[in-house]
């Protein structure tokens, strides 16, 4: 989850770098793997920090204030960290959680599910271990359970709520962002997950039209997109893609909506299509897709997001 810079122990969101955490007798990561990942990350970061610096310069010079072609272009090319909070929150009104609804209790089992996930939400993040921030996370997930009883709690929302909190800081505004992100997709998280099932069918249509070679492997191996990439949509790519890529996707998602879930999912599958076509078992297929989501292609967020070569647009 660490976004760098590579020589720091902790990034600006509180994520610890994987190479500073000391291996214990119980837990260690293969040093050879870690070293090769670090080389990859360093290389990426050297290139990417030039892009970040250039974008920051552009934003400082022409900070776009209104929705329009320029704002759109600027958002797609990445909102600098310094402006992210302001740009994300600009059009999100505070949600009023009325006193009557907040006095309705939710069930013990919802409360229990939220509580068991708290220590398991980004254990590599130092800020979330600060008691007051941990309680904010609990309160925001509880508020969501009260506000949207049809959901209560669904695993995965813990990651979304935590990233909102880490990025926005303030509890009530992070709760606004959380609700803003969840309300258009309530049915992803309800008991039947009908919204997720619907969107997986839509993605399958797109894949069968534009990536027939991938679609035929999925059919032959009898693996549904729900199993393969359902988590991408449920967690809005958190814990599947590198965190910097997640932030860049969220820039677009918050500005333009869920067309970006489809665009990114499609582009990732397209990047992996040759490897997917070579799969002979469902295990191999799952592994291929998982590895691709942490590959150099997934890390290289700028080209993943700014590429224009697909036919998925809001009109569809």
């Amino acid at each position: 989850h660490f976004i760098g810079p590579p020589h720091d122990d902790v990034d600006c969101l509180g994520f610890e770098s994987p190479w500073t955490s000391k291996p214990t007798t119980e837990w260690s990561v293969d040093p050879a793997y870690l070293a090769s990942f670090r080389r990859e990350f360093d290389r990426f970061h050297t290139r990417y920090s030039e892009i970040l610096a250039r974008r920051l310069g552009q934003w400082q010079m022409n900070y776009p204030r209104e929705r329009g072609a320029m704002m759109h272009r600027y958002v797609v090319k990445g909102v600098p960290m310094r402006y992210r909070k302001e740009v994300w929150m600009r059009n999100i009104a505070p949600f009023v959680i009325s006193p009557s609804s907040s006095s309705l209790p939710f069930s013990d089992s919802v409360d229990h599910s939220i509580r068991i996930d708290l220590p398991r939400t980004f254990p590599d993040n130092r800020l979330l271990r600060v008691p007051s921030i941990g309680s904010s996370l609990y309160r925001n997930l509880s508020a969501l359970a009260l506000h949207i009883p049809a959901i209560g709690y669904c695993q995965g929302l813990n990651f979304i709520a935590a990233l909102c909190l880490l990025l926005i800081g303030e509890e009530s505004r992070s709760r606004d962002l959380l609700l803003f992100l969840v309300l258009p997709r309530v049915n992803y998280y309800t008991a039947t997950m009908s919204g997720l099932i619907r969107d997986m069918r839509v993605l399958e249509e797109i894949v069968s039209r534009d990536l027939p070679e991938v679609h035929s492997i999925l059919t032959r191996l009898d693996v549904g997109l729900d199993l393969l990439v359902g988590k991408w949509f449920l967690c809005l790519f958190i814990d599947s893609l590198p965190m910097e890529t997640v932030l860049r996707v969220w820039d677009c998602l918050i500005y333009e909506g869920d067309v970006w879930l489809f665009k990114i999912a499609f582009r990732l599958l397209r990047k992996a299509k040759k490897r997917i076509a070579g799969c002979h078992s469902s295990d191999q297929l799952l592994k291929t897709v998982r590895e691709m989501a942490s590959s150099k292609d997934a890390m290289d967020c700028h080209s993943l997001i700014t590429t224009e070569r697909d036919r998925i647009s809001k009109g569809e």
Partner: protein
Amino acid sequence: AAMDPTGAGTSNDEFKFKVVLLGEGAVGKSSLMLRYVQGQFNPRHISTIQASFLSKQLTVEGSDIDLSIWDTAGQEKYHALGPIYYRGSQGALLVYDVTDAKSFDKVKMWVKELRRALGEDVILFIVGNKVDLADSRTVDGEMARGFATEVGATYEETSAKENIGVENLFELMCSAMVTRARVGPSNRGTTNGGTRNGRRTIRIVDEPTTGRKCC
């Protein structure tokens, strides 16, 4: 990859098995998998969303086994997507936390669900995890063992943290699956083709029932 259909051969058999870990959230499903496959325990484990899997090659009773272990999210909601995580499994490890009586109720639910969806072909193990926390234990081991016997499952106890019984658990499961595959009527899972046919059937049988439960 040839299998001896008579079951008399004891060497050079190759099997491909899928085992799924099911159970309430935070009972230690992922930790059991990581302990067995990577020999490690991470006290700071992240919650599993949907499913993840690891594979391991091992030899049991002269047979080479390619074992895929599927780990699933604990929350029941995730099973609204249907039997996508456990279909095609030859074995299921139904895990509960010996310090949490509610997690044992979830095991009972899973026994019913799997028997209904996969029938008698699936080998069930009921696993009491976190036995290192003996002082806060609330589920009686003999009661759990009695329940397992009643429903035709094997009972084992483990601690992923202290590495108690984990290797043994997976080896027992593999050896049970080998025995079943050698004498069983369907030999599902020994080839990809066989598994696929099995899955198709399960899917058709299962969907209406899931619908009823939700309404």
